[in-house]
């Protein structure tokens, strides 16, 4: 069984191996044991509420329960830009117009901004190659939305993700070469590594503060602004399916887009429902295709756990959990759990009428929500 749970000290070796294998491009998780250990510490402090809520770093591990190994990681940073300055470029427009001159020229312009300050960010997603496919990536990413929804007061109303921008096989970024490099004489890969080590805002302070008029940059650089690296295209698609949209901000180094969504609009959040647990001793076939599975989470802040099970387990008021699933989720009969579809456009858990109901959920179908302010 694959299970989402908070990242723990024992995951350090697995995490380090994953970071090593990921190579370049994953700036938030560099292969640096000390730094990773600090991150794990930070996450533990966060889940045990020993650090200020806004300073929280929520890191989840995807554990293969058979081996006990962490095979994936994903995270949420409660707020960005608190103790350092969080920079983006805003892609905006400057219009030059004069009737007398018959001129109407639109000039795309990059403005340095700190607009994402105080916003929650989903980050640090990494999955071992061996576990790619079968909906594992979806679980790893989407479990975070269930957490965000469950504990909204710990997060901002909006959540965003920075998508990796375009760079070539040699690790060269066209935007960096045309812009950043002129102000901070260093190859992109090095700057990227430095920023992973927590120096991003320092580098940003060396970057241009005044607006950059795009026509002054070469075509190669202009064409990658707001575009993602080809390896990131699936992740972008997944987030778009959740309701995330490009918000006009791009990374100051590689021009990768920032996508954002209001938490209450995220599809996983909108389509999630609560059920009471009914632990069953009947054996059932858990191995169904991703499209027929749903995510199921407990509702614990400290020891949040998510796994998947067939949508057919969902009843009108209850959900049948095999013993081992219940144990993994640390729930018992009568506890409330939350359910959400794993894949978009597939079965949706409904409050009535059987397991594979495709009917839309409506607000009234969610009687067990613990909080009512949003629905």
């Amino acid at each position, binding site marked *: 069984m694959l299970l989402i749970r908070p990242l723990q000290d024992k995951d350090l070796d697995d995490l380090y191996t994953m970071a090593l294998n990921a190579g370049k491009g994953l700036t938030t998780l560099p292969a640096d044991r000390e730094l990773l250990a600090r991150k794990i510490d930070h996450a533990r402090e966060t889940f045990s509420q020993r650090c200020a809520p806004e300073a929280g770093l929520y890191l989840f591990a995807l554990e293969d329960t058979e081996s006990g190994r962490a095979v994936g990681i994903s995270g949420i940073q409660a707020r960005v830009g608190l103790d350092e300055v969080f920079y983006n470029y805003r892609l905006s427009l*400057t219009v*030059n117009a*004069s009737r*007398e*001159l018959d*001129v109407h*020229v639109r*000039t795309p312009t990059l403005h340095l901004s700190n607009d994402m300050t105080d916003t929650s960010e989903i980050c640090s997603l990494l999955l071992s190659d061996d576990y790619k496919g079968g909906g594992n990536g979806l679980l790893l990413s989407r479990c975070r939305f269930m957490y965000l929804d469950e504990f909204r007061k710990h997060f901002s109303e909006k959540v965003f993700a920075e998508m990796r921008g375009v760079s070539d096989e040699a690790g060269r970024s066209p935007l960096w070469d045309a*812009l950043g490099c*002129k*102000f*901070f*004489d260093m190859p992109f890969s090095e700057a990227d590594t*430095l920023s992973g080590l927590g*120096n991003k805002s*320092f*580098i940003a*302070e*060396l*970057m*241009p503060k*005044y*607006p*950059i*008029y795009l*026509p*002054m*940059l070469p075509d190669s650089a202009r064409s990658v602004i707001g575009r993602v690296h080809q390896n990131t295209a699936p992740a972008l698609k997944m987030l778009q399916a959740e309701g995330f949209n490009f918000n006009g901000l791009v990374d100051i180094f590689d021009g990768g887009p920032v996508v954002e969504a209001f938490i209450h609009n995220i599809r996983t959040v909108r389509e999630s429902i609560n059920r009471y647990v009914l632990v069953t001793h009947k054996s059932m076939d858990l191995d169904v295709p991703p499209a027929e599975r749903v995510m199921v989470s407990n509702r614990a802040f400290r020891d949040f756990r998510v796994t998947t099970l067939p949508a057919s387990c969902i009843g009108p008021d209850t959900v049948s959990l095999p013993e081992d699933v219940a144990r993994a989720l640390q729930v018992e009969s009568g506890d409330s759990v939350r359910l959400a579809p794993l894949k978009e456009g597939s079965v949706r858990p409904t409050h009535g009428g059987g397991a594979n109901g495709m009917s839309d959920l409506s607000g009234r179908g969610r009687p067990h929500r613990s909080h009512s302010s949003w629905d």
Partner: protein
Amino acid sequence: MWLVRPARPDDLDQILDIAGEQGARLSSTLPKQREAMARKIEHSCRSFEGQATEDAPARFLFVLEEIDSGNIMGTAGIDARAGNGQPFYNYRRDALIHASHELGVSRRVEVLYPSHGLTDQSLLCGLTIKPELQGTDAFELLSRSRILFMAEHRGWFHARTVVEIQGVQDDDGHVPFWDSLGRHFFNMDFQTADQYSGILSKTFIAELMPPNPIYVTLLSPAAQAALGQPHTLTVPNLELLQREGFQAGCYLDIFDAGPVLEARTDSLRTLVTSHRKDLHGSHDESGETCLISAGEGREFRCTLTTVTESLEETLKVPVQTWQRLNRSAGDTVRIAPL
């Protein structure tokens, strides 16, 4: 023999001919359109009569006349207040240090800031001359006569005087700085923009330029190389102005990045070395050649003359010089060494 005098409405055709001969300029120069030029001459006449207003400050236009033929061979101007009541646009070339203590990195970043800092200073402008007269005494007369005029009418002018020097333009007419910057915001080449600047105003065009500072490092290499560099054709003029005491500072033309020269008006060499004297006759035509001017406002004349004798109060020059200046014995004139 040469005479510099205020432009008159009947000079229009000849001035237009000269204006047409100069290449695209966009800056502080003569309009090439007939109507615009006629208005300019008209305004100049009012300015010489002291009738300039707050809204339309004085702009003086002088011509270089070949006395024997009556031909106009060049023009020169002074705008009493740069910008002529509107903002006067330049780039100020400056530097920022982008430094990070944490990373131990420090970097000098050159920036062009849009600036109105020179607005209302006095501006020498509109200097054009027939190519064959470049670098001659006539050229010097034309350029420096303006300073004699300023010396004579010091109250009309600002404590500081500036001159815009034409920037780099290649043989095909391309202006590297414009191509790297201005062109993006106008969607037109330098020549086209130049046409408009004659009809409208430099300020009008300048207001369409980006309002934000420009990082030098993002300009094309050719544009970077052109910053503060004079057009090769302007070098004689540049050198003359440097001898006059003008110096390039941090200001650049916003269209072609040519240098803007600056000086304290009261320190200009012609102004410092010129003296007022009483005019007396001489039949001797030998002696040192000097600049001589006389007359106020529309009566202003300036020419070259030989000086037989220059004493404390009196100056002896050939009588022909009197005639050129429209003066007679005992009148006050101003004299400066060539």
